[in-house]
């Protein structure tokens, strides 16, 4: 059953997505998202080197060997940054292209007859994963499913085992270090797993589309929730949905399956950006309007309170002053005044504005919150 093309492709996609969504949230929250870009390029170097040394193009040795090149990449970036001669972003942009370039040159020179080619590097071959199978405990299954499944399990165990350490290490590395939780070691563990996941996913989705899988679904989740556990869960959900939608569209339009899956993560991101209940643009625009009106009323209360007992009261606490002194356009001034009067904060008598007790209370609370 696992060798059925549809099932093999979908299963591989789901495993890539879920394995990535386990790690991505920590990278995003640590503001190290671009390290995944660096790692996913750098593993091309590791994959070529491991192949040259061992002749292996898949399996655990290959995955771990090539995975180390991602860690090497991060270590080089840190070493360069530590010289103080170059900023971190420039160091990232210097190290990974060099490793990637070295990998491509090795490809040019040694690998003309191997199935790793330019195409795989960039696009992956998820459409063909069902061709390359292996029997485990009597069950025929695609190599990709086997190894992606193994990596997913390793990631799952790692994240569950070190959940609270990862959480604290992400939000407050200093405190985590003070507790003896070794946040740096844990961070390198996270990056090693990121590399390993990238290597395992390489055949299926290529080096660059992997970035979409590890960044976009967690970013989507980040726009929907403030809780880390939810972020991981929603990220996985987004991945799985993208895999199904992407596969269907790719088949319908006869285009790259991995490309379409990656692109669909973007569709979910767009939806979250626009309609996310707390951080989405539409709900926020709605609230922003309400906030602005509320702030305008507050500003008026403070203004009236400030000048209430001063000699300039006759000049300041009149409806015209909203336009001449507060510099508001007439329509805005009228709206603010109407809201203030309707809320019982202000009495509008002729041109003069008089604070009610309620309005005065509001101004005082705003100005001297510590007296509350």
């Amino acid at each position: 059953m696992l060798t059925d093309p549809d099932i093999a492709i979908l299963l591989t996609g789901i495993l890539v997505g879920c394995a990535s969504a386990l790690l991505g949230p920590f990278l995003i929250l640590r503001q190290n998202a671009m390290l995944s870009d660096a790692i996913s390029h750098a593993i091309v170097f590791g994959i070529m080197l491991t192949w040259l040394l061992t002749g292996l193009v898949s399996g655990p040795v290959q995955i771990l060997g090539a995975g180390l090149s991602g860690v090497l990449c991060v270590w080089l970036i840190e070493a360069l940054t530590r010289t103080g001669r170059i900023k971190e972003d420039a160091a990232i942009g210097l190290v990974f292209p060099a490793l990637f370039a070295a990998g491509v040159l090795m490809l040019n020179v040694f690998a003309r007859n191997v199935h790793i080619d330019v195409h795989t590097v960039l696009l992956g071959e998820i459409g063909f994963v069902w061709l390359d199978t292996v029997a485990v405990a009597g069950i025929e299954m695609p190599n990709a499913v086997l190894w992606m499944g193994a990596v997913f399990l390793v990631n799952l165990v790692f994240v569950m085992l070190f959940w609270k350490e990862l959480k604290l290490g992400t939000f407050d590395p200093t405190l985590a270090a003070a507790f003896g939780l070794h946040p740096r070691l844990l961070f390198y563990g996270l990056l090693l797993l990121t590399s390993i996941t990238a290597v395992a996913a390489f055949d299926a989705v290529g080096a660059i589309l992997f970035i979409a899988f590890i960044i976009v679904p967690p970013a989507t989740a980040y726009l929907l929730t403030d809780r880390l556990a939810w972020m991981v869960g929603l990220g996985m959900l987004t991945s799985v949905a993208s895999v199904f939608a992407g596969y269907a569209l790719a088949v319908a339009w006869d285009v790259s399956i991995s490309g379409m899956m990656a692109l669909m993560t973007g569709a979910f991101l767009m939806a979250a950006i626009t309609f996310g209940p707390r951080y989405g643009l539409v709900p926020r625009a709605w609230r922003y309007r309400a906030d602005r009106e509320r702030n305008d009323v507050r500003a008026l209360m403070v203004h009236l309170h400030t000048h209430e007992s001063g000699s300039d009261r006759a000049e300041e606490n009149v409806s015209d002053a909203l336009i001449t002194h507060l510099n508001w356009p007439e329509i805005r001034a009228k709206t603010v005044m109407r809201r203030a009067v309707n809320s019982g904060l202000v009495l509008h008598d002729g041109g003069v504005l008089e604070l009610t007790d309620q309005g005065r209370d509001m101004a005082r609370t705003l100005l001297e919150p510590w007296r509350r």
Partner: protein
Amino acid sequence: MDLLFDHTLRNAALGAALLGVVSGVIGSFALLRRQSLIGDTLSHATLPGICLGFLIAGGRALGPILLGAVVFGVLAGLAVLALVRATRLKTDAALGIALSLFFALGVVLLTYVQGQAGAAQAGLESFLFGQAAAVLTSDLAVLAPIAAVTLGLTALFWKEFKLASFDPVFARTIGLPVTALETLMTLMVAIAVVIGLQMVGVVLMAAMIIAPAAAARQWSRTLEQMVVLAALIGLASGVIGALLSSTGQGFSTGPLIVLVATGITVVSILVAPGRGVLWQVMQRHHERQQIDAEEVLATFRHLIYEHGDPTYPVERGMLNTYHGRGVSRVIEDLTAQGLIAQASHMDSEGDHWVLTPKGLERSGVADA
């Protein structure tokens, strides 16, 4: 001399030279504004533009392809800006999102183009890793004016770019439209990326924005020096890489150019006078030695005062005890400088040293 008459090679070298100069100049500003990785995002993001340009022109016509690339590069730049401004995502995530999603769109379009019956796909693959040999004379006629305009704009807006890069807040207070200038600089990064697409390819252009500028930064004291040097380093990397790729069989040009540029950068970070890492290590070592020497001389002075004897012979073991470590090397240095000399005190008790007249003067004993 034959090399000069080889059209393919000449075109490749000229194209790479153009790319090197422009990306060095534009990259300098990106580097100083801490926008290095924008080049990475923009270059990956040009892929859908390349495919669309190809589709619309119905073939590998450079004009439409470059136009498409610039448009999508700029769109990606705007997407990054919009994500950072409008959502709670930070710059790093925004860069990664724009990079990977635009690239995914490119991959989808690429497979669509390849699926079209009769569409020659060979032309497009060269945009991934770069193939300088594919540069035609007619391509140069497109690239050279673009490069000239970019460099001209940089010269024209020189002082505005400089101030907006160094101190954008101050620039705003004197009335410079900083946002517009920053947008223009980002647009120019997109143009630099596009000039390099044929030679270096979408994946590796990021390095060409960063490496020449980062190398030049180590050697320069002013922005003027940095930009000129970055242009020269970019030019050298481009030409050397293009020439190297023409010697071997089937070498992609991009990786070679990038490795040359990275090599120059690494060497610069190590050895550049003043800023170089090795330079500083040597400097520190030298300072350390001087401090050690002063400390040992101070010990001599102390012992001389204590014993009221300017020719008091000091034993090696005593010095070691005083300083809590072996000071043999310092003693050798001081002897070599003629500040102390070995004195035969009592053979059985080991080596002794006394201050020479020069040493007495240097340690301040002579003044007292």
